[in-house]
């Protein structure tokens, strides 16, 4: 079968540091795949290579069976590969609505139209407002992003990702910084995703992983320690050992 997203033997060095070490990863249509691993394991760097903002030292990335290793990030996005950032990466000088509007209008290929007033682009503005409502930020739509709490900024990341009509969605620690009370909201957004969409979610919160993912890849020091169905991976001795050693996941899980 052709996978929606596939990484084949990716390697990445930062100087002498081997951050991605022969990673293989496959996302089938409808995949709900979690990528877990201790801090510094190379998860974000892997997402960078999948989305094209980091060039791998060697190896290949395929979208829908096509080699996109040399394809620029913007073009990958236009094929439906959408990522979020672990640390909010927004237009801080713009309002929430303007941030999401920008994503909607790029997605609608309006970004090269110099004659259509953005403020009269009702279709895109309404779509942006729907997404803002979805992440319950409507009361803040007209506030500058820089005035919002960190957790709220994380939700804008999600709204922007949805605005880009993802077919493949890479979420880099979406729950980090989101207050516990809002986690249900995040879960619901994920549950409402198109069932045929392929999701890769990096997450430290094991409870969230259990509820969202059907498959898991565990990355340690840039290598895949183990991957497979959620149940198998979670019960594997290796994973328990790594996580008990790191302490990170168990602590957050408690």
């Amino acid at each position, binding site marked *: 079968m052709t996978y929606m997203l596939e990484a084949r033997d990716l390697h990445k060095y930062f100087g002498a540091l081997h951050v991605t070490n022969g990673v293989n990863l496959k996302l089938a249509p409808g995949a709900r795949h979690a990528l877990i691993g201790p801090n510094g394991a190379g998860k974000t760097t892997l997402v960078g290579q999948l989305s094209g903002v980091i060039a791998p030292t060697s190896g290949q990335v395929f979208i829908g069976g096509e080699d996109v290793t040399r394809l620029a990030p913007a073009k990958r996005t236009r094929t439906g590969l959408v990522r979020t950032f672990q640390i909010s990466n927004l*237009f801080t000088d713009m309002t929430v609505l303007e941030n999401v509007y*920008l994503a909607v*209008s*790029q997605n609608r290929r*309006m970004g090269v139209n110099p004659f259509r007033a*953005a*403020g009269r682009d009702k279709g895109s*503005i309404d779509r942006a407002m729907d997404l803002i409502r979805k992440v319950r930020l409507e009361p803040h739509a007209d506030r500058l992003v820089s005035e919002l709490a960190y957790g709220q900024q994380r939700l804008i990341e999600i709204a922007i990702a949805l605005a*880009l009509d993802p077919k493949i969605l890479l979420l880099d620690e979406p729950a980090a910084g989101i207050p516990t009370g809002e986690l249900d909201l995040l879960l619901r957004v994920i549950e409402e995703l198109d069932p045929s969409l392929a999701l890769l979610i990096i997450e430290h919160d094991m409870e969230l992983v259990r509820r969202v993912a059907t498959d898991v890849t565990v990355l340690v020091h840039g290598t895949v320690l183990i991957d497979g169905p959620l149940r198998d991976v979670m019960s594997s001795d290796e994973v328990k050992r790594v996580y008990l050693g790191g302490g990170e996941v168990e602590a957050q899980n408690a």
Partner: protein
Amino acid sequence: MDMPNARFLNRHRFSLWELVPLIVAIGCFYLFPGYLTLGAAVLVMAIFAVSLDLVIGYAGIVTLGHSVFFGVGAYGAAKLSMAGIDAPIAAALIAGAMAAVLAVLTGPFVLRLKHLPLIMVTVAIAAIAHEAANKMSWLTGGHDGLPNLTFEPVLGLFKWSIWGTTSYLYVLAWLVLLVIVSRIVVSSSFGMALQGIRQNELRMRVMGAPVLKQQVIIYTYSAFLAGIAGALYAQTNNFVSLETLTVDLGVFALAMIVLGGLGRIYGAIIGAAVYMIVQYLAQQWDPYFWMLAIGVLLVLVVRFGKGGLLGIAEKAWLRVRPARPAYDPATSEKLEPGE
């Protein structure tokens, strides 16, 4: 944050405030009939400053080579006049198009650079263009320039006068027209994307924005404006010289837009006017004093108001009356549903 409550999505809304500069310009026409030549020069620089603000202030493309497009427009209009194409409006449009063609050809290469390399390369290109024009005196007249240019009356009706009456109104009409078009451009989805690129280019790329294409479009449009400004310079002075190609021109225009407030079309206009008038007055007093006067003014404005003169004024006004939100649920219900 230099502009609290910035509302990009409100940019297309016309405000009565925007008539103020026009009223002032027309007022000056009647109040200072002896200064209309200076006035026309101010308006030409205002067009050039707006053109530079579009690339620097809106798109974040920091170039110091914009004099090239001004010079191409100026020499283009001069050559057109010498070749018998001396209907001023048509000549200005053709000269602007020449500058735009140059921009569309060079933009895809130059705009791959960012930050300091971009600044260095654009300065170098401008310096080389100046020197090349100096060497090619068969084409440009070298140090002597191209004097005694003649142009038909504007629209065949309004004769040029030595008092600058026609020049002033002619350039003012261009400025008004180009500001209206530029306003449409910056408040479009495209204009917002440019401001997105300025704030966070990586984010725009990851949203699928064709960043280089967007930058080349604004660069080309901006060059078109700069070329028209150059042509108007030639037409109102009946003369072009290497002055129109000096690197200084791009640097002065940068000072103007910083003074007036980056990323605000009217800021560029105010900046150009204040700069030129301070320069004129300081020069009257002491020919060597004006650089210092401008320098002190710039330092004060940058120190006390990040958004330039216009930013200071806006901030004061927003204290009095806050901006209206872009999304108003009450009115949005009445409009047609989205696609």
